[in-house]
């Protein structure tokens, strides 16, 4: 890659010290997101996708902590910044969109107040200009009759409209990076499609790098340029969305794709992966997926596979060259 990535994560480790020992929730993951690129992060609950997002924006809940590795925003390390410095980056240079728009908006303040506050915190616009900018943002995210809606309270908006307001808030300071954690999970399908289209459009127009965290492969397939499939705190496979969805190589990624019922296929049975993701205190030695893997052999139980490049993807499996052993 010639251009410097907006976000660069190297060997990130996140751990939770507990009375019974230290639990490693994120175990040496590395990835980059380029300008204008959407990286989808998928995985099942407990895979560590939201935690990765929280680590990047410096909002890990104590006692969770970054135990190793580095996070760089536009080349500059942000994982070891003091709280105050991180506070200036959050919102200004990294925008955030969370699953439930009701918890990201303050119910007691008008939408205009929340937008103007955010804009004025991060830019030097005066009150009048900030209000104009707020109006422009609401128009951009497709809120009908924005002049009348600007001074409404969050409860006066529907779920989909609230999520549009949250997107407007995230865009307020023109951030370089947007982290969207399950932005459409709380919404109905018809509204979800609108929000996905909006996210894609605004990110392209603002040339922002986007980290899209979701458990919904369909959303990723529609939105992302590249995908990282996470399993038990590690990245099993990362690559261009077409390759990972159509030709997954890691046995877990394969199982995951096969398990999703689609509108196109007519198989009487879904592919199923036996068992469930291990708990943090019981991650097996070697490859974390080995107890559930059909192609497991001795080495998988002893040694952790490092990601190897295959085409444009990277796959953490000893059998990746052989297509995951199948």
């Amino acid at each position, binding site marked *: 890659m010639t251009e410097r990535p907006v976000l660069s994560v190297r060997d990130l480790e996140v751990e939770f010290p507990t009375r019974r020992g230290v639990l490693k929730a994120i175990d040496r993951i590395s990835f980059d997101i380029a300008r204008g690129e959407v990286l989808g992060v998928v995985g099942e609950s407990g895979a560590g996708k939201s935690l990765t997002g929280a680590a990047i924006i410096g909002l890990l809940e104590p006692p969770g902590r970054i135990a190793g590795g580095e996070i760089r925003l536009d080349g500059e390390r942000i994982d070891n910044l003091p709280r105050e410095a991180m506070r200036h980056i959050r919102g200004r240079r990294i925008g955030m969109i969370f699953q439930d728009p009701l918890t990201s908006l303050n119910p007691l303040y008008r939408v205009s107040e929340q937008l103007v506050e955010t804009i004025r915190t991060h830019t030097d616009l005066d009150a009048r200009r900030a209000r104009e900018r707020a109006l422009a943002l609401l128009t951009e995210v497709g809120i009908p009759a924005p002049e009348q809606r600007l001074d409404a309270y969050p409860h006066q908006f529907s779920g*989909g409209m609230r999520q549009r307001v949250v997107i407007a808030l995230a865009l307020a300071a023109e951030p370089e990076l947007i982290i969207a954690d399950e932005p459409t999970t709380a919404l109905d399908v018809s509204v979800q*499609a609108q929000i996905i289209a909006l996210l894609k459009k605004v990110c392209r127009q603002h040339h922002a790098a986007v980290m899209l965290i979701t458990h919904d*492969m369909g959303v990723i397939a529609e939105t992302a340029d590249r995908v990282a499939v996470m399993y038990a705190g590690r990245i099993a496979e990362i690559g261009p969305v077409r390759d990972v969805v*159509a030709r997954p190589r890691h046995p877990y990624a394969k199982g995951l794709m096969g398990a*999703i*019922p*689609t509108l196109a296929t007519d198989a009487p049975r879904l592919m*199923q*992966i036996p068992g*469930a993701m291990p708990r943090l205190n019981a991650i097996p030695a070697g490859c974390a997926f080995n107890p559930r893997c059909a192609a497991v052999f001795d080495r998988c139980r002893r040694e952790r596979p490092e990601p190897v490049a295959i085409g444009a993807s990277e796959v953490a499996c000893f059998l990746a060259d052989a297509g995951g052993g199948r």
Partner: protein
Amino acid sequence: MTAPLVKVADLRRVFDVSRPWLDRVVAGEPRLWLTAVDGVSFEIARGETFAIVGESGSGKSTVARMVVGLLPVTAGEVEIDGVSMTRPGAELEGLRRRIQMIFQDPYASLNPRWRVERIIAEPIRAFAVLDGERAIAARVGELLELVGLAAADGAKFPHQFSGGQRQRIAIARALAANPDFIVCDEPTSALDVSVQAQILNLMRDLQDRLGLTYLFISHNLAVVRHMAARIGVMYLGRLVEIAPAKTLFATPRHPYSRMLLEAVPDLAMSGRPRVAVAGEIPNPIAPPPGCAFHPRCALADARCRSEKPALRAHGAAEAACHAVEEGRL
């Protein structure tokens, strides 16, 4: 075709959503009624899976609860195997055993203080299916193995299981009374995809082995397509289309069904241009007059704004749409 196992006719449910009497009188407000389900009719054949899809607030769960008798109906009739569910009688008591339900959230539907064996044995005891502790214990072990758990798991508590395993326990409990008909309300929505696949496969296997009839409620079109033979699409309390699964996905008739199918994110990444979806579900307390979908429909005309369309057959499908009926679509 033999007589259908389940017959639902003109089902209607109205909720009183008024504020308390005094507040209402002081503010001079009228009473408020929310029609959650209106004029819903369908039949389910023996051994068939009928699914109802719809977005939140469409009334699909309300239908499910009325069908099993958890919620009284405002009007209409539910008949299962020729016995009315809506009129109390001696026959109804015998029928209850044959109808069971699986709920969405396996964390909320299992009593956390009871051991799994007690949870599963409860319907057996309640309906006096078996006599004697040994026979019951043996049956519980058998049921646990049927759903892919170990007989020894009966001694554990629900918190010792994962979400998918809990849903297996809920299924074992539903099967304990040897039912014919199981109503499943979003049984896999709370589960991860790989676990969802396990549960859906299990439900199909059990249907084949035990000849079960399912009413399957879901918002997930792909899951519904995978599970159901016939599908009803609900919008704001009404069924707008009923069709065989293949027909619905190949040639959706109703504009709402079309919009819904269009909106599903596509794993195939065909790059098809997507028709922008307009608007959101209106407030059910004050639904639009005429066809409830008309404010979001590109084909709406004066008739759609004033007259409620009824379900009419179009080939293998039934759709409630003036535009389809008049051949404008």
